[in-house]
């Protein structure tokens, strides 16, 4: 424990460097804006900024601090448009509309904005403390992982992300397979064989991660935005009290705290993310409140709980990424890709080899959260003004910045064309409700997964049994199978139980 605190102290040394403080503030600000804009979520924000961070030649820890601040900032920003427009700014903020918008309509917009900023802050802080407590332990434990265990772990991650993807697990699985297949393009470093390049020199190095991410999340998002355009005409002016009072704070305290803990746990699980965490805690609080609650009609607890949970889960998803090198969400998958640009492979060794990076990141999460609380309570007016930036200016801007990011890596037209190709394919897939997060996860993990599989099988000279030998890998396989089998079974049982009294939703 003392050792951990010592590391954290050093981490604050890194995070407090003027450059990193500046970057954290910038990231927090940009993140809030991106999160607030409907249609753009953390994954888009991180994807668009990642190539720029690389092009600006920021050192890896600074780049990671920027991206992390953007990620956390997005979870703060999503609530603003939920409350004022009844349009969730990002997927994690869907539940926030249920009680946030009614509160704003009752003239409590200012209170809703400030209390949700506060519960976002509590959620993030609880989860960041959680990272400090659990991440080093998990990393030490994971040092014992061999290639077979890693392979099983990655299968577990895929099982989580596909099993929890709601109504279309098969499509999520297909997305993951497409991502994995894309990662095999290029030179196979073990044997010197070129795979799926079609003889093209541009592809011999494989496809750039940035090209895929920007194509799939930025270009296709622009095409999707064409379909549901909306105007900010329905925006409610925040009126009355700006700040919540002591009573409201006390009233929501336990909901906020409980939801933070649940959100953190959900966030640590690979695959489950802010969306699931906020939905879970909302229904949990609704049940706890019972008949005393006015959920759906402007109950302040129904606002505080999902906000705390989505922030906590965002921070929690750093745990598997930093300790195991296996990202638990689409956004952290993009961050792993960002690290790979710096030739850094996240994993348990990261804690021993790059303590400045890991602990600098954790410390800057604390700092970024304080900054976010500060800019989100007094300065919320600045952000609400930004909601009225028209799309005809915003969308070309996003497109220009995205293209600059891709261009900055290799400065070739080929990469830009490939980006557009991925944008169109991504758009078509998303239209078919194929989720993109598993695709990115597959693309990021593909090489690692194949290498670990081949290394494991090299040990036994091709005997496949090694994958199921150690207790750790057996445990992981059982978890993976459970993740795939359990959700449909649960859904089936729930449906049976719900059918008699369909009135309740």
């Amino acid at each position, binding site marked *: 424990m003392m050792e951990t605190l010592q590391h954290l102290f050093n981490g604050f040394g890194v995070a407090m460097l003027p450059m990193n403080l500046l970057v954290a503030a910038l990231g927090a600000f940009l993140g809030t804006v991106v999160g607030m804009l409907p249609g753009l979520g953390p994954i888009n924000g991180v994807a668009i900024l990642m190539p720029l961070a690389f092009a600006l030649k920021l050192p890896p820890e600074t780049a990671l601090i920027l991206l992390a601040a953007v990620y956390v900032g997005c979870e703060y920003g999503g609530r603003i448009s939920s409350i004022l427009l009844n349009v969730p700014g990002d997927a994690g903020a869907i539940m926030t509309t249920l009680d946030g918008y009614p509160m704003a309509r009752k003239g409590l917009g200012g209170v809703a904005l400030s209390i949700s900023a506060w519960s976002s802050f509590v959620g993030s802080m609880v989860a960041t403390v959680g990272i400090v407590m659990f991440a080093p332990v998990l990393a030490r434990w994971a040092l014992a992982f061999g290639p077979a265990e890693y392979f099983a772990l990655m299968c577990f991650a895929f099982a989580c992300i596909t099993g929890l993807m709601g109504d279309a697990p098969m499509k999520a699985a297909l997305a993951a397979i497409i991502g994995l297949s894309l990662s095999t393009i290029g030179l196979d470093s*073990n044997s010197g*064989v070129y795979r799926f390049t079609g003889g093209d020199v541009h592809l011999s190095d494989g496809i750039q991660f940035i090209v895929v991410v920007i194509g799939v999340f930025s270009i296709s998002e622009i095409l999707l935005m064409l379909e549901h355009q909306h105007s900010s005409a329905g925006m409610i002016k925040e009126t009355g009290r700006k700040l919540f009072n002591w009573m409201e704070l006390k009233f929501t305290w336990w909901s906020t705290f409980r939801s933070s803990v649940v959100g953190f746990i959900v966030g640590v699980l690979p695959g489950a993310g802010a969306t699931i965490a906020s939905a879970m805690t909302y229904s949990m609080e609704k049940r706890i409140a019972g008949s005393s609650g006015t959920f759906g009609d402007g109950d302040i607890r129904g606002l505080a709980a999902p906000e705390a949970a989505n922030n906590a889960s965002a921070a929690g998803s750093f745990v598997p990424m930093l300790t195991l090198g296996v990202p638990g969400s689409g956004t952290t998958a993009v961050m792993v890709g960002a690290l790979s640009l710096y030739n850094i492979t996240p994993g348990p060794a990261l804690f021993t080899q790059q303590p400045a990076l890991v602990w600098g990141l954790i410390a800057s999460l604390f700092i970024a959260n304080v900054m976010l609380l500060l800019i989100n309570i007094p300065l919320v007016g600045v952000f609400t003004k930004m909601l009225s930036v028209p799309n005809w200016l915003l969308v*070309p801007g996003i497109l220009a910045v995205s293209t600059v990011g891709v261009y900055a890596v290799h400065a070739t*037209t080929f990469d830009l064309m490939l980006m557009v190709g991925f944008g169109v394919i991504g758009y078509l897939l998303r239209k*078919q409700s194929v989720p993109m997060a598993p695709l990115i996860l597959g693309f990021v993990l593909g090489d690692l997964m194949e290498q670990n599989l081949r290394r494991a099988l*090299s040990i036994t000279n091709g005997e496949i049994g090694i994958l199921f030998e150690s207790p750790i890998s057996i445990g992981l396989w059982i978890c993976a199978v459970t993740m795939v089998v359990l959700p449909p079974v649960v859904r089936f049982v729930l449906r049976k139980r719900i059918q008699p009294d369909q009135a309740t939703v």
Partner: protein
Amino acid sequence: MSDRILGAVCVVVAACMAWAAQDYVPAFSYEPVGPRAFPRLLAALMAIGGAWLVLKPSLVGNPLQGTPVKLIGLSAATVFVYALLFQVLGFPLATAVMAVPVGTSFGGNWKQSLVGGIGLGLGFYLLFDKLLDVVLPTGILSFIFGGR
């Protein structure tokens, strides 16, 4: 219906993958699992997934219904042309040109969009190229902006 198309496309892609991968045999092998196995495994999984979608498509109606196909085609074409001419026209000019069709697709009139596009082109050029040192192409306007 469209689930079936998606599934069929997956099966075809998987078949192409498996066909392309059959030659991936190294001259020397140091390991039991060569470069061919993993792509083949993926091709098999993709074929299974695709076949599943063909046999058991979800019962959602046509997702293309209500899609502004023309608008999306126009925007996709614009992005394509933007990518193609990015180096030739240079960033400031290409961005100004791109902003007109994209801006009008998103509810602006063409005058607003053009002015906005010129602003974005110049603003981002100054920000990235001059201030942040991310080199951008200047293309045919290099006599004004310098650079390539």
